[in-house]
């Protein structure tokens, strides 16, 4: 095979830009200095220990995790029935409905965050955690609807009718026949949504308040005061959680599913 040297250089550069920051962050997080530096000077795990010594990190980690699980679950509760209805009645329902569910992706997150603050947090006086939960559910809703919807669009609804004809009531057929066959889509949607929620700053920043914060926001706050490698080690930790989650997906479903 003939290779174009320009093409090779371009590919190498692309990968360098993709992987470079990860290497820098990992290196920085291991540095034995009190400031961020690369290449690391001395090797130490003390900044990893530091994460768990700072109570704000511990607290926000729990908050972020609960938000990601709760927000995604809430959005699945809305998203799965919505995706089901849009796939099942795709000829009866107006096509614009599907686009409405993608709006949270199209609207700049800052705007979404601001309007949520005005309406939910201030207007309706929601407690902070509840407002965050609503915000995150809204943020990840497009992923749930789209990914589960892709599975449902590939689902042959005569299978559901077959179950009904065999004596299974429709609500039961939904759980025993429809859901098991779009399981892959639900898992993939859950993971995408989970990661999106876990990494979110723009919406959370408007909805967090006294005593309640999320991990990414705590990272920002920490960096404003200290310039130590803790943020690098938190980043590495988040990275490994994400990689771990992706590895589970890859193992159980194959990553190709996400690109479908």
């Amino acid at each position, binding site marked *: 095979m003939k290779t174009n040297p320009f093409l090779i250089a371009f590919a190498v550069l692309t990968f360098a830009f993709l992987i470079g920051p990860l290497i820098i962050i990992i290196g920085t997080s291991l540095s034995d200095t009190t400031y961020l530096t690369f290449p690391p000077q001395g090797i130490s795990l003390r900044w990893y220990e530091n994460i768990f010594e700072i109570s704000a990190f511990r607290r926000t980690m729990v908050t972020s995790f609960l938000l990601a699980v709760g927000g995604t679950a809430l959005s699945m509760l809305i998203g799965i029935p919505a995706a089901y209805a849009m796939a099942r009645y795709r000829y009866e329902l107006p096509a614009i409905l599907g686009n409405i569910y993608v709006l949270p992706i199209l609207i700049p997150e800052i705007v979404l965050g601001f309007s949520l603050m005005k309406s939910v947090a201030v207007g309706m006086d929601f407690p902070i955690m509840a407002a965050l939960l609503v915000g995150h559910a809204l943020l990840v809703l497009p992923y749930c609807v789209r990914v589960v919807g892709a599975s449902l669009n590939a689902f*042959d609804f005569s299978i559901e*009718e077959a179950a009904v004809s*065999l*004596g299974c009531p429709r609500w039961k057929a939904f759980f025993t*026949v429809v859901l098991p066959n779009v399981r892959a889509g639900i898992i993939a949607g859950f993971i995408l949504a989970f990661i999106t929620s876990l990494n979110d700053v723009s919406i959370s920043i408007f909805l967090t308040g006294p005593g309640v914060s999320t991990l990414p926001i705590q990272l920002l706050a920490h960096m404003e005061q200290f310039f130590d490698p803790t943020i690098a080690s938190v980043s590495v930790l988040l990275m490994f959680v994400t990689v771990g989650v992706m590895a589970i997906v890859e193992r159980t479903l194959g990553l190709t599913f996400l690109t479908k």
Partner: protein
Amino acid sequence: MTVSLTLSGITAHYGTTKVLEDLDLHVNEGELVSLLGSSGCGKTTTLRLVAGFLEPTTGTIQLGERDLTRLPAHARNIGLVFQTYALFPHLTVRDNVAFGLKQRGIGAAERRKRAETMIDRVGLTDFADRHPANLSGGQRQRVALARALVIEPPLLMFDEPLSNLDAKLRVDMRVEIRRLQQANGTTALYVTHDQEEAFSISDRVAIMNAGKIMQLDTPEVLYSRPANTFVADFVGFENMIPLRAVAEAGDAVRAEMPGGAILTLPKSQFTVPSKDFILATRPEGLLAAQSGEGIPTTLGLRTYLGRAYQYQCDTPAGEVKANGPLAQPFDSGTQAVLIPQPEQCCLLSA
């Protein structure tokens, strides 16, 4: 348990579009009736109404003594076989077949026994532990059949069950369907757009068009004695020649064609239904000959069919297709007559 199915005065709409109009249909006990027609004629709608996936605007559906009209689909106890097989992809063949039994609250051991007996009857014993994805099209359809039969439904319904199979398998499967249906004496409704398929396995066939049944009769009658021009055209009476009875001449009726030519039809062979009528024939119902009592024509393009020659003929009533004997090929442009063959012709009221 053998019951009859009766649809009376069924009208159905999709949104504001009327798809069925005042449809009456009666399927006798143990009978297999096909609904035959092109897409959009209402045959699948009829089946979905009986299944309970659609509600009629007016009319009633009765299965034996039971009124199904407002009964939810899952309570109707009808075995359905789908065009796409619609097997449960996440279940094994055995669990697919046992699904209906499970819904009926039958215990696991009994369920397994009955499912396996049925799987054996459709010849899939070695495949009971497989998932549908690992089966061929024909095997999948057998599973679908077993799944519908195992609940011992009083009514079986088929929605184009063979259209995803190749030609050879289609013939084998339809024989199998007929065999199993007859063995159980189950009343059956069969939807298809394939005339050969419908005619070969049905006791009676309903030919449908635009939401109405055009004719419901045995395949033999439909094939030889269509009741109207639609059915005649559907079963291959390609030539439609409008005629007007103008005079009686002894034991024959003299009829005038457009263009003024006169055709004499012996009363012993043809029954003229009304003053204005249509002579419908298959190509083999018009015999091209040098002379005789028939329709004057100029023979056009000749094609070879193996059993006969076929001619595109220009007549005063328009272009028609006629067959001629192999022994005597005519050239294009030959003046000839087309003699109606009574057994391949049909006179319909205009």
